[in-house]
Structures are given as structure tokens and as C-alpha cells.
């Protein structure tokens, strides 16, 4: 197993390199560059724009810039800097955001799984019952409602219908204003929970709905298997049959999905982050795309590609761990 993991990690390097080349040159296909936004400013002369291009190296051909960037990473671990904020590229993406992003993402993940798995099991074991129809219906709504729209509806509901402002509560962001720069206290924690809950609901909804569908389908498959029949005929309690025999087998594909959802953890909260004003890495990445802040975009892409690969690896390893039939060596 250990040898397998090392091999997989070594494979990652050429893949990342190829991804970086492709994404760099795809990026060049975007019209304009970082200086485009300066050009409509009547206070900048043409000469100064040209000077700016030279300063940022944007007048050089793409392959020269790519070479400079990639050699910087290999030789100095330097991922370039943000043209917009003059920070190192990784700071521009992660600083003040990584922790919150992970917290929101893992919070959502836990929220999703703790809700979706029991519901999925219930749906499968009560197939075609009123409860199953109802939950399936809710699930479909969850999948089909656009994330950003739902976020807006939730905030609007809090203001216009619940009028939470009259109770001294804020909406959006992570805290009410007076807590943002205050040290952690119990009151601040409670306030944080108040702001986190709508985020979990909005971000988690689509994932929950999807997971319910998967769990239900998988479990229905498994419940038809002969070993379930055997377990039942042995006289095992129904609870044990479902959870120890059926669910235990049905959940394997979901474990693989869990590993592969690692990059989604960063991407999933994106729209909600914009509407709800959350500090997330994905929004910072989107901002750099809009500004064509080349090195930040590239570093972001590289980071997400890396996450995807690690996620795949994790998925495979976890699967081997929960399913003794799987061997990689």
C-alpha cells in the first residue's frame, strides 16, 4: 500500500506540469490582460500604459512568462505575485480565508452527511411510501434550486419576513458588526453560529439532496442482494440487517465520492460566498480571474488541480480501507 501511495504521488508531478501548461495557454486566449482595466481610465496616457505592460512583463510572449513562472516555482518555491495587490500569489488567495473556507466546507460536509445518510436509508427502506415521496420531492427541489438564488431568498426571508434586524441580529458575513474585530467570547460564538446556520443550509442543500439520491439508490440495490436475505433468514434484527449488512456495503461508492469531493469543498461555497459575503478562497480566485491577475489565477488552478489529485488518491485509499476486498499491490 505504501509503495502504491508513493507511486501515485510521483505520478502527480507530470500531471500537474501538463495541467499548468494547458491552463496557462488557455488563459492567454482570454481577451485583454491585467492592464485592460487601466485603459479606459482617461487619466492614463498611452505611454504610461505601455510602461506598465513592460513593468509587468505583459509585453513578452506567453511562453517566456510561463517559463519564468514555472522556473520560479521549481527553483525558489516562488509562485509569483498578484499584480493587483502586490502580494505573493498564495497570500492573495489564502490569507485570512483558508481557515474560514475549511471551516465552512467541512462544516457543510458534516452537515450534509449527517442529514443525508439517515434520510437516504429511510427513503430506501420505505420505498414508495408517502415519506419517501416527500423526501424525494424535497431532494429534487434541493438539486434544482440554484445556489445563489436560494442564498438570496434565505437572506431576503430573514430581513423581510422575520425582520431579524428588530431583534438586533445581522445577516450575511460571519458575524454581526460588533463581533467581527472583537476577541472570541461565548456571545461571539453564538453569533457566529447564527451566521453559519444559513450558510450550511444553503451550501449543504444541493449536496444533501444529491447524497440522499445516491444513498437511496445504492441501498435499494444492496437490499435486493442475497446476503441481505441470508442475514434476515438468520433471524437478525432488521436494524442490524440494514446498518451492518446493507448500508455497510452500499456506502462504498459514496466513500470514493467523499475523497473526490475535496476540490468541491472549495468550489461549492462559491455562489453562497458572494451573496452571503463570506471570506472564501474560491471567491478570491474568481476575483483574480476577472482581473486577469495571471499568477494568482495560475497558482489557484494549480492548487485546485493538486486538490483534485489528492482527493482521488484519498478516495482510493479510503476505499481500500473500508472494503477489505480491494487491494492495490
Amino acid at each position, binding site marked *: 500500500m505504501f509503495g502504491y501511495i508513493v507511486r501515485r504521488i510521483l505520478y502527480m508531478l507530470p500531471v500537474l506540469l501538463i495541467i499548468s501548461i494547458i491552463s496557462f495557454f488557455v488563459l492567454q486566449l482570454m481577451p485583454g490582460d491585467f492592464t485592460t482595466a487601466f485603459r*479606459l481610465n482617461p487619466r492614463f496616457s498611452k505611454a504610461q500604459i505601455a510602461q506598465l505592460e513592460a513593468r509587468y512583463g505583459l509585453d513578452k510572449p506567453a511562453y517566456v512568462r510561463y517559463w519564468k513562472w514555472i522556473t520560479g516555482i521549481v527553483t525558489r518555491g516562488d509562485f509569483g505575485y498578484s499584480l493587483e495587490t502586490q502580494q505573493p500569489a498564495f497570500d492573495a488567495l489564502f490569507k485570512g*480565508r483558508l481557515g474560514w473556507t475549511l471551516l465552512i466546507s467541512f462544516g457543510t460536509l458534516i452537515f450534509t452527511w449527517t442529514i443525508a445518510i439517515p434520510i437516504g436509508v429511510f427513503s430506501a427502506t420505505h420505498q414508495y411510501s408517502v415519506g419517501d415521496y416527500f423526501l424525494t420531492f424535497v431532494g429534487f427541489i434541493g438539486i434544482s434550486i440554484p445556489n445563489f438564488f436560494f442564498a438570496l431568498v434565505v*437572506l431576503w426571508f430573514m430581513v423581510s419576513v422575520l425582520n431579524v434586524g428588530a431583534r438586533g441580529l445581522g445577516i450575511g458575513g460571519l458575524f454581526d458588526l*460588533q463581533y467581527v474585530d472583537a476577541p472570541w467570547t461565548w456571545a461571539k460564538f453564538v453569533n457566529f453560529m447564527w451566521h453559519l446556520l444559513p450558510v450550511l443550509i444553503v451550501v449543504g442543500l444541493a449536496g444533501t439532496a444529491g447524497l440522499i439520491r445516491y444513498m437511496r439508490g445504492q441501498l435499494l440495490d444492496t437490499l435486493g442482494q442475497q446476503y441481505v436475505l441470508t442475514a434476515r433468514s438468520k433471524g437478525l434484527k432488521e436494524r442490524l440487517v440494514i446498518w451492518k449488512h446493507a448500508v455497510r456495503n452500499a456506502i462504498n461508492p459514496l466513500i470514493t465520492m467523499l475523497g473526490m469531493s475535496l476540490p468541491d469543498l472549495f468550489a461549492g461555497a462559491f455562489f453562497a460566498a458572494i451573496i452571503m459575503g463570506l471570506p472564501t478562497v474560491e471567491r478570491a480566485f474568481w476575483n483574480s480571474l476577472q482581473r486577469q491577475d495571471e499568477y494568482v489565477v495560475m497558482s489557484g488552478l494549480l492548487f485546485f488541480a493538486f486538490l483534485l489529485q489528492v482527493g482521488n488518491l484519498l478516495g482510493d485509499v479510503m476505499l481500500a480501507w473500508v472494503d477489505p476486498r480491494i487491494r492495490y499491490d
Partner: protein
Amino acid sequence: MKKLVIGLVASAFLVGFALAQEYKVVPFGQDEWKDFTVGNYGGYLVVGSLDNPKTFNEHVAQETSSTDVTGRLHAGLVEINPITDLPEPGLAKSWEISSDGLTITFYLRQGLQWSDGEPFTADDVVFTFNGVIFNEDVRTDYRDVLMVEDKLPTCEKVDDFTVAFTLPAPFRPFLRMIGGAIYPAHKLQQLSRVYNPDADPEALNSVWGVDTPPEEIVGMGPFKLKEFIPDQLVVLERNPYYWKVDPQGNKLPYLDGIKFVISFSLDTIMLKFRNGELDVYAPRPEDLATLIGEAAAKGIEIMIDPTKPLFGTTWIAFNQDCPNENLREYFRMVEFRQAMSHLVDRQSMIDNIYLGLGVPQWSPVSMLSPFYYPDVPKFPYDLERAAQLLDQIGLVDRNGDGWRDFPDGTTFEFELTTNAGNTIREQCCQMFVEDAKKVGLKVNFVPIAFNALVTKLLGGEYEACLLGLTGSSEPHGGRNVEWSCGGLHFWKYSDCEEPTPVAQRIDELFDLGVKTYDFNEAYEYYKEYQILAAENQFLIYTVNMLFRYAFYKNLQNTAAFSPLVGALGLSEFLWKANPNMVGNRVVG
């Protein structure tokens, strides 16, 4: 000037111990300040912001999420009065213009201190201009604005509190333009290659970036930076050394500080304002009905002034150098462009798209500018007249398919574009396309992404385009657009090599307009320019949005909110009836 001297004496008397400090007294209750009152100290102004500041370095800051913050941290020699829009003393207590108009001497206030307590002197001013603004290393949009006949003025120290600027030629907008932020020499001088040849050429661009410890950012403005939490909050606090006092000698500002709540969506900012989490908000047209409905219950005041459109212009440009030569020929005909103006239904745009919050615009100069000339030739919505003009230049339907054709019988059609996602502009374009259809003119509307559009526009690759430009009181600010060789002369870049007589005359008028210090004379030049621009319809101006502002009534000294200044521009004078209140609720 007399009033100022009296004010200075009064302030010295009232401030007592600070006899040597030449504070500026803001005469609340008098003249243009008549609606302002002396306030109480305390509380934060809370505003929404759509993005993080990208830098705290005022001279390289580009977008409002940065300049909204940096503008509060710094001050300049001359200030623009937020009510009268005229230059008045700032860090300089007075100035003299030599009789030939070439030398301007500024006398600085004495005894002032930077926000870190260091003394402010002429060295700071000289460093700011020679070491930062005139320094080619610095990526500032402020340098080109100060160019006179393509040369920069020179800046010299006369004594510790006197600075003299020498211009290559008289330059009327000088006083309005010279108010840029003064930077502290004691903090930054070593980063400028003018003073320190070993400095990194990028140092002055990257200094005061978003990671800088707040105490490093030193200014002469009413506030100083306290904290920046990315994606969440920027906090400014009162600068205890600020150099303005109210008529009773109380130091300004009244507020403890300003909090910028960062939220990336205007929808959310609007909801936060309604929820009582922000003190002020500039509502979009679609927000107004909701806000007016809630105003009484929530204690919101809404300002809409039909006489005050925003600075800036929105227009349709026809590329007279466009790649399609057949089109180009027609785009160059003034009758064609006049016909296009007859096709713009400005009133319906105002009623249906701007929801009543707009006024038609006819001139390239912003309507609130003192140089605005209202009676330029106008070519208002008139389909018959448009059709007549198009017939006249030979654009008629030759094959009976309902569309007007080129003389060779092919359909006359062009592409109209705008930046995708701007719903107001997209709707205006669609309305234009519909009206053009009514006179048999085929217009294809293709919105594209903003960056792609700018590249096309400035590369001369577009056919027709609806966009906007920012504006100000000073028509010279538009020189880069109007000047035949200007970088933004996007409707006809070929004017640079072979200028038409009209283009030549406009170039001349822009030169004349800045060479006289006499307002009335300058006005005549800009008036002629506006008439020429309107007659020739280089850009077909559409509609200008009206000023809108909403705030909770707890906020005081709000009478002067206008397109010139909102809550941030007036923040040094604002105060809160209840300092513990944000929006309409008590916090803490």
C-alpha cells in the same frame, strides 16, 4: 481670504495651548455651511463596500473599493469644497499666482502633525511631488493630469512652510488638480529613486499594500487605518492630529471612525441596509420602492434630487475607423450620426429602464460642471426625422425586404455592443435596436464581456458601442477622450494623423481653455467645444442617472449629500445623534 484669517485667529484663541497650530476652521452655520451644526463625538459610520481594498497607497489605487478608504487617510494642499465645488485652502493656508500665471506659491499651515505625530513641513510636499508623483517609477494616474504642454511643473521648497510650483505654461485647472494626497517624507523618502538611487523601482508601488501594519500608514487625513480583515471589514479610526476644527474649536472629525463592511453583492448590501446594519446606502432604481415603503417605520431618509444627475456620461459611439469600409463611409457622415441620435428614445429609457431616475444628456460635459452648456444643438427622438436623414444620405430600402440597403443592394447593418451583464445598458441597446427597426435600419445587438469590449474599443475593432465614461467638474479631465491624439479618442483614432477641421478646432479649444485663469473666458471655449461636439454627434449621449441616497436619520450634518460627495466625502463633518447606534438600532 479675510474670513480665513479671522478664522485662524479664532481657532488659535479657542484651542488655547495650540497657539502655533494653524488649524482650519470650518464655519458651520454660515454661508454654504449654514445647514451644518456643531456635533457630539463618538460612534462609527458604517458603510457597505463591494470589494476589498487592493492597496492603501492612494496614488496607485485604482478602484473605489481602495480609494473610498485611502481618500479618508490623506489630504492635499488644496481642497475642493464639498458644497460649492470650488478649490479652497487645505494643507496650504493660502497661495499666490504670479502675474504671468507661471508660478504658484503655496503657504503651508504651520504646526501641523502627521497621524504619527511627526511635524508636517514643506519637505513633505516637495517629496510628494518630486519623489512620488513626478517619479516615472510610480504607477499613478495623477501624473498625466498635471502635464502642461506635455511637460510637468517643477516643485521647489522656498522655506520650511512655503513651496513654489513653476509651470511651463499657464494652466487654469492647476488649483483643482494640485490637491492630491501629500505623503510623509519621513516614512517613504528612502523608497524613492529620486532621493535614494539604490531604491527598488517598484518600492513606491508596493508600499502600503494590504498586508502593511496599520501604524505604518501615515497621513494628514481625518482618519487613519486601524484594521483590515480581508473579505470582512476595514476599520478606520479618528486621526487625533487632524487639522480642522468646528466654530467652537472642537477638533474634527466627530466620529470615532468608519467601518467598511465588505459584502460582494449589492443585493446583500441593500438587505443589510434594510436590516439596520449600515448607516447609508446609494439605492439602485429598483430598490427605491421597497425603501420608500419602509422609510417611515425604520427611520430612513431618502434623497432624490431631480436637478442633480451623477457625474459621467453614457453614450453610443460609432467607430469612424471601423474595419468595414462601407460602414465607415456612413459612420463618418454627420447626418448619419444625427439620425442615430434621433433614434435614441431618451424619455422611454428614463421611464422604463431608469424607472424615472434619469435625465437626458446632450453634452460631453457633466451636467453639474460649471462649464456645462445646456443649450447645445439637440437631436431628440424623432423617427420621421431619422428616416428622412437616412433617405437623404442614400440609405434606402432597395430590394423591398424592409431593411435599408447600401447602394450596391446589400443590407446595411451594423453590430451594436455593450458590456454584458450591465442590465441597464443592455436594455438601452435593445430599445435602440427596436427603434432602429421601425425605420428599417438593421442593428445587431451583441453584448460582450467588459475586458473583451475594452480591447475592441481601444483597438478600433468595433462598429458601434454603448458605454459610459466617468466625469468631473473639470472638462479638461476629458482631454484624453476629446483630443485627436488622445488614448481614448476611440471613435476616430485616425484624427491623430489626419485631423478634420472640427477635430483641430476642438484640440485648440482644449489648449485655450486651460491657458486662461479667467473662468468666463474659459467657459466660452468649452461652450464652443460642447456645441461642436453636439453638432457633430461624435458620441451620441443618452441618459444620465440621477443622484440617489438613503441614510438612517440618526446621522447628522447630512444636508450636503450630493453627486459630489456622499457620506464618505463628508465623513469628517458627520456626527451621530446617538453614537451607539448603527442604522436604526443600538449596538453593544
